[in-house]
């Protein structure tokens, strides 16, 4: 009988398009073929000896999988056997859900042709890619350090719709890194200020403002009109919220975060890749990782990381290159080193694993161990009584014998202080004998977070009358003495 060899397999059949074999069954014919041309074997069969899934074998016009006796079907000398590898494929749409619902953009206007000309001559972008960008809808969570360069470059690149979620106003301390805002914007809403900057860069971009805190109640509603989310948040509850909402909505989460001189970036929640919970199933205890306000940050760092995020967003939209899926990029600006860790999708992940328990958005503050804020300030947190700045002032004015312990760093002490005794938090365990365990001690830092940990440490080490100064030196400056510098 005849066996027809398809073009791609002819290098292994001595370039013959038809091979004649003598056989009584289909299986015998295939065995005769592969014993005559052993190189064909690995192309037709798996290591386990099964016919490869994409190889179809047809006896005359019938697929042998659907005929009686299958491979053991009898054959005649006049029959012919055809080997047909499958022909299939598809657009990138099924791999990254970008544009799953977005219609393609209209053709570029002459103004856009000129504006994007350096994109258009890149084969990887071209007119088709620029139209993708124009049709794309990207949501940025936060209009701060990461959101600033991210949205500015996305607008410049021609992303059609940029959504922004933020509810802060611009403060002077933002300006060393949030380059989307200027000095004259201090006191304005961040979204209004950002909108002005983005319009100045590219009036074609549609800006959608969500002047609200992102919550479990509104996240899915906001996310539903976007193709990609870029997470530029500065706190853990919102980061888990963004992750879970992305997984539930099937939207990729382009993530970056920063800490002092270091940053990390990845792409989470794609169909095949890991999510943020695969990397960090549990949040760190509250207060362990300081925010930018607590720990400080090199102003340029969010610029660098925000632009890495923007690059990943553009790549996802274009369907070009290798996205940061399953990889965590670590950036150390002091050493100026970029490293990469492999991430794996965790089959047991509660959000994106095989047995998901996160099927709706939860209370993320509670998940991260942050007590709910009540209208009344908490009187006791983790067994440490809290003292308000007004109470401390009253007792100091009354001449009470009260010891104020300042656990900030010396350089902070040099900027502003309220007469406390300086023992930095890190030195406290070695220097604890400097303190009198029987005296009333009020522990103080910048915002009340580090001092809470110091007070908890003292309470565990036999100090009986320890208070945490709620709100720290910031609250003191706000409510007692404006001449104390806020930094």
């Amino acid at each position: 009988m005849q066996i027809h060899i398809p073009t791609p397999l002819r290098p292994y059949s001595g370039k013959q398009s038809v091979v004649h074999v003598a056989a009584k069954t289909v299986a015998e014919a295939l065995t005769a073929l592969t014993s005559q041309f052993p190189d064909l074997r690995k192309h037709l069969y798996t290591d386990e000896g099964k016919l490869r899934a994409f190889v179809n074998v047809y006896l005359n016009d019938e697929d042998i999988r659907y005929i009686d006796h299958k491979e053991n079907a009898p054959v005649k000398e006049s029959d012919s056997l055809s080997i047909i590898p499958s022909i299939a494929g598809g657009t990138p749409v099924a791999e990254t859900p970008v544009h799953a619902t977005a219609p393609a953009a209209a053709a570029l206007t002459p103004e856009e042709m000129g504006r994007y000309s350096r994109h258009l001559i890149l084969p990887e972008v071209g007119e088709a890619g620029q139209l993708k960008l124009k049709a794309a809808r990207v949501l940025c969570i936060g209009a701060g350090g990461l959101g600033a360069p991210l949205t500015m470059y996305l607008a410049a690149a021609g992303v059609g719709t940029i959504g922004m979620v933020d509810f802060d106003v611009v403060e002077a301390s933002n300006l060393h890194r949030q380059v989307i805002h200027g000095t004259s914007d201090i006191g304005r809403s961040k979204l209004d200020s950002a909108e002005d900057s983005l319009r100045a860069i590219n009036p074609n971009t549609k800006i959608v403002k969500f002047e609200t805190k992102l919550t479990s109640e509104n996240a899915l509603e906001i996310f539903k009109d976007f193709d990609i989310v870029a997470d530029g948040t500065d706190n853990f509850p919102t980061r888990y919220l963004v992750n879970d909402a992305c997984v539930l909505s099937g939207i990729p989460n382009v993530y970056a975060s920063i800490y002092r001189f270091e940053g990390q970036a990845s792409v989470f929640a794609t169909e095949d890749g890991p999510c943020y919970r695969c990397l960090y199933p549990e949040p760190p205890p509250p207060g362990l990782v300081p925010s930018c306000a607590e720990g400080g940050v090199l102003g340029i760092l969010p610029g660098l990381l925000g632009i890495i995020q923007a690059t990943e967003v553009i790549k996802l939209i274009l369907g070009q290159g290798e996205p940061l899926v399953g990889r965590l990029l670590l950036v150390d600006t002091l050493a100026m080193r970029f490293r990469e860790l492999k991430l794996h999708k965790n089959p047991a992940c509660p959000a994106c694993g095989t047995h998901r328990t996160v099927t709706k958005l939860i209370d993320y503050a509670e998940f991260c161990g942050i007590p709910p804020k009540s209208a009344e300030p908490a009187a006791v947190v983790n067994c440490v009584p809290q003292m308000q700045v007004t109470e401390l002032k009253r007792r100091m004015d009354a001449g009470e014998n009260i010891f104020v312990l300042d656990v900030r760093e010396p350089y902070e002490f040099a900027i502003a202080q309220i007469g406390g005794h300086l023992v930095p938090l890190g030195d406290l365990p070695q220097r604890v004998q400097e303190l009198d365990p029987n005296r009333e001690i009020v522990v103080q830092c910048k915002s009340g977070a580090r001092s809470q940990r110091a007070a908890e440490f003292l309470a565990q080490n036999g100090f009986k009358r320890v208070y945490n100064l709620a709100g720290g030196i910031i609250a003191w400056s706000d409510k007692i003495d404006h001449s104390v510098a806020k930094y």
Partner: protein
Amino acid sequence: MNVPGLRMEQVQFEAIRRHGEAAYPDESCGVLLGRSGEDANTVVDAVPASNTRTDSAHNRYSIAPQELIRIQRESRQRGMDIVGFYHSHPDHPAHWSKTDLAEAHWFGCSYVITSVMGDGVTNEDERTARCRAVETNSFLLTGTGEEDKRLETQPLEVAAPTPATANA
């Protein structure tokens, strides 16, 4: 080393692109018949095939093996071989996708992809009426097996129509 090219005439090139527009918003697909050579594959005929992926035709294509066998038999009778396949990417760039590579098994064959862009409007009927083929690129499946296969960009040479000869 230069990647061998794919040659075709304007008439086949246009036929491939028109098929992409006609199928929009679904993917078009077809088989390229011709002759394979050392420096290039030459297309003599582009045969449209039906997309069997009716479940997800807008982003998947598949050619039924029966149809392929029929096309292959006809090509043998005309002294030609299968030298490649074409399909369209509605609203996506003319570049192979991960799925395209995973599903490509015809080594030495060309995979021609045409991007067909709709026209911004949300209304699907209107978009379909105004869609147009944008880019067409060709990729050669190289490698020795499933483990090391690659789709490499290959030169696509479209010749101007040859003048008709007396006995054509």
